[in-house]
C-alpha cells in the first residue's frame, strides 16, 4: 500500500525514467481501483419511466445513474418494449414510474424480459407514483372495447399537478431511505430542502395562475386534467372522440359547430401529439382561438430545476395565449 503513496514527483536519486513511469501507473491504477470500489458501493441505478420522475430522482439522489425510458416528445402510453429498455431495466436497483396503467402497454414486458427481481411489482424497488396520490376521474373498469383506453384507477397524468408531485416526492424519498438505509439521512435532508423550495414555487404558480381561473379550453386527451383542476380551468371539449382515439373528422365537425357559438380561450395539445386536428379547428374558429402546444414533461431531466422550469413554461404559455384574446 505504502509504495503507492510515494510521490512520483520526488524521485530518489538514481531512479530511472522507466521506474518513474511504473510508479505513475501503479498510483493511477490504485486511485482508479479505489474510485471504482467506492462508486460501486454508492451509485444506485434508477430506471425512470418518464422524465419528470428522472428529474425528481436527480433531486433526491444526485449521484444515481439514471436511465430515462421516455422523453417529453414521446407519448408514454405507446412506448414499445424495446431491447434497450429491457437492458436498462435489467440493471436497475429502483424503477420509478407513474402507474395507474399509464405504462400498461410496455412496462410489464420490461419487467418480465429483464428478469430483474428488484423491480417486479410488489418489491420495494418498483415505485409507482400513482400509489401515493389521489387520482381524479376514476372510471369503472369495462370490458367494452369501444369505450377507448379507459384507466379504471383514474387519470394517470398526475405529474401536471405540482402538489401531487410533492406527495410523490415524499413517498419516493421514503422509499429510497428504505432501499438504501445508509443514505436515508442525506436523502431526507435533500428532500426537505427541495420540498421547502417547491412549496414556495407552488404558491407562486398558484398566484400567477389566478388569471386562468374559470377559463375554458379545448384539449386533446386528458393529459393536463390535473393542471386544469389545480388552476380552475374548465376543459369544455376533447378533440378525442374516445379516450386514446385520434380525432376523427366527424367529431371535429361537431366540435366546430358547438364552439363557433362559444369559443374557448385556447386549444391545447401536447408536444408529442399530431397537432393537425387542433390547427384545423383553430382555423375554423376564424383564428380567434389560439393554439397552445404544451410540453408533456420536463425537457431535459439532467438539468437543475428541470421540474420548476417546466411548470414556469406551462404557466407562462397558458397565460400568454389566453391573454392575447
Amino acid at each position, binding site marked *: 500500500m505504502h509504495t503507492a503513496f510515494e510521490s512520483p514527483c520526488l524521485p530518489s536519486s538514481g531512479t530511472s525514467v522507466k521506474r518513474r513511469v511504473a510508479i505513475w501507473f501503479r498510483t493511477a491504477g490504485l486511485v482508479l481501483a479505489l474510485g471504482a470500489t467506492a462508486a460501486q458501493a454508492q451509485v444506485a441505478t434508477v430506471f425512470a419511466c418518464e422524465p419528470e420522475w428522472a428529474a425528481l430522482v436527480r433531486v433526491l439522489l444526485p449521484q444515481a445513474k439514471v436511465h430515462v425510458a421516455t422523453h417529453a416528445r414521446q407519448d408514454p402510453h405507446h412506448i*414499445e418494449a424495446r431491447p434497450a429498455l429491457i437492458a436498462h431495466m435489467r440493471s436497475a436497483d429502483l424503477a420509478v414510474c407513474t402507474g395507474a396503467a399509464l405504462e400498461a402497454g410496455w412496462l410489464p414486458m420490461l419487467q418480465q424480459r429483464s*428478469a430483474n427481481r428488484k423491480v417486479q411489482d*410488489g418489491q420495494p424497488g418498483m415505485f409507482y407514483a400513482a400509489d401515493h396520490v389521489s387520482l381524479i376521474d376514476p372510471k369503472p373498469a369495462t370490458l367494452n372495447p369501444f369505450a377507448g383506453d379507459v384507466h379504471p384507477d383514474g387519470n394517470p397524468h398526475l405529474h401536471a399537478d405540482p402538489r401531487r408531485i410533492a406527495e410523490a416526492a415524499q413517498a419516493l424519498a421514503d422509499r429510497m431511505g428504505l432501499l438504501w438505509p445508509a443514505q436515508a439521512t442525506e436523502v431526507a435532508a435533500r428532500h426537505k430542502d427541495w420540498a421547502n423550495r417547491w412549496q414556495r414555487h407552488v404558491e407562486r404558480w398558484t398566484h400567477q395562475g389566478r388569471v386562468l381561473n374559470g377559463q375554458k379550453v379545448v384539449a386533446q386527451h386528458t393529459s393536463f386534467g390535473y393542471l386544469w383542476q389545480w388552476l380552475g380551468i374548465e376543459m369544455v371539449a376533447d378533440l378525442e372522440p374516445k379516450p386514446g382515439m385520434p380525432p376523427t373528422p366527424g367529431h371535429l365537425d361537431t366540435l366546430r359547430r358547438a364552439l363557433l357559438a362559444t369559443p374557448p380561450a385556447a386549444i391545447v395539445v401536447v408536444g408529442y401529439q399530431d397537432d393537425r386536428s387542433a390547427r384545423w379547428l383553430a382555423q375554423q374558429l376564424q383564428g380567434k382561438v389560439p393554439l397552445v402546444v404544451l410540453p408533456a414533461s420536463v425537457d431535459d431531466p439532467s438539468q437543475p430545476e428541470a421540474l420548476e422550469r417546466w411548470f414556469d413554461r406551462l404557466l407562462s404559455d397558458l397565460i400568454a395565449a389566453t391573454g392575447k384574446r
Partner: protein
Amino acid sequence: MNTQLKWWPHAAGLVILCSSLSHSALAQQDEAWGIGAVLDVAHTSKALAMGQREKGLQLGHSDISAAGPLGRSLSARFTVATHSHDGKVEAELEEAYVQTRSLPAGLQLRAGRFPSQIGYLNEQHPHADDFVERPLLYRAFLGGHWFDDGVRVNWTAPTPFYLRTGLEVFTGKQLVQEAASSSSPGAIAFSVKTGNDWGTSNSWQLGAAWVRNNREAALHEEDEEGAEGGHDHAHDHAHAHGAMFSGRDMVLLDAAWKWAPDGNNRERQLKVVGEWAKVSGINRYAQSKDVHEASSLMAVWRWSAAWEAGARMDWLKARSPHGDHFHNVRLQERSLMVAYKPTHAQTLRLQYTGQSGAEGVEGAPAKRSLQLHYVLSFGAHGAHSF
C-alpha cells in the same frame, strides 16, 4: 385438440409453485389479475395454399386469456384459443404456464405450455401480427406458431445492450404431432436475442435459434404411395398445429429494425423484419441436399396514429418426403396490406396476397386473394413485445 401433457413439465411447474407458496402469504393485494379476450374474424376471397384461413367468412385465432401474479415469486398465464375449422369451432389450450420473477442474476424459469421464443414472431400473439396470415416460414415449419409443453430457462445478461440466452425443452408433440420414431425430450430449442437503440429514432434486434427435433414425422399413406396432389389430409393441415415440413435440426435467424422520428412511434414508425430458416435431417432417407428453407421480409409504415400499410415477401423451398425419396416443393407469396386502427382495441385490415412459383404444393395456389380482417380486443391483454 391435444391436451395430453407429459408429466415432466408439470412436475417442474409444481416444484416452482411449491417453492413459492411460502412467500405467497406476503404478496400484496394491489396486483390484480387481468382477463381479456380477442375476437378475430376474416373474410377470404380465395384460400391461400398452405394458408390458415378458409374461403369465406371465418373465425380466426380468437382467444380468452388470464394473467397475473401468483405470490411474489411467480406469475402465470392461461390462454384458450378458438378458431373455426370446417364449419366447427375448435378450442385449444395454448398457454398455461407459471414463471418465476424472483430468481437472482437475471435468471428466469418457466414451466407448462407456452410458445417457444424462437424467431421474431413465434412468441407474439397472432392478433398482434401485421398481416392476415403468418409468413410461409411459420406456416410451413412451425404450424403457424409453435407452442408446446415444456420448461424454459432464460438468462438476461447485465450488459448495457439487451442480451438474452435461453434454453427450452419441450415434448415436441405440437411440432411433430405424429412421430414415426422419437426420443425424449422431443424438442430442444436454444436461442439468443440481442438488441439496442441507435440514437433516439432507431432500434434494432437480432435473434438466432437452433431447434433439435427428436421426433421424426410419420409418413401418411398417400405419401408412402408417392401419390401427388389430392391429398385427403390437406384439410388436417389447414389448421393443425404442427409443422408441415419438419426435420431434425432447424436454424432460425431474425432481424428487426424500427425507425420512428424522435422515438415517437405512436405517430410514425417504419418497421422492417426479416427472418430465415433452414431445416435439415428431414427423415432417415434424407441426404444433405434434402433441406427445407424459407425466408420472409416485411416492411410496415405507420403514417399516423390510426393508419398503417405494409408489404411482405415470402419464399419457401422444401423437400416433401414420399416413401424413400423426396419431391420438390416451391412457393412464393407477396402480400400488401393497409390497416386502420381507430383505437388500441380494434384493427380493420385489407390485404391482397398473390402466390406464384408453386410446385408440389397441396391445394391450388391463390394467384390473387383479398382478405378483410377485423380484430377486436376486450379487457386487459398483455403488453406487446418489440
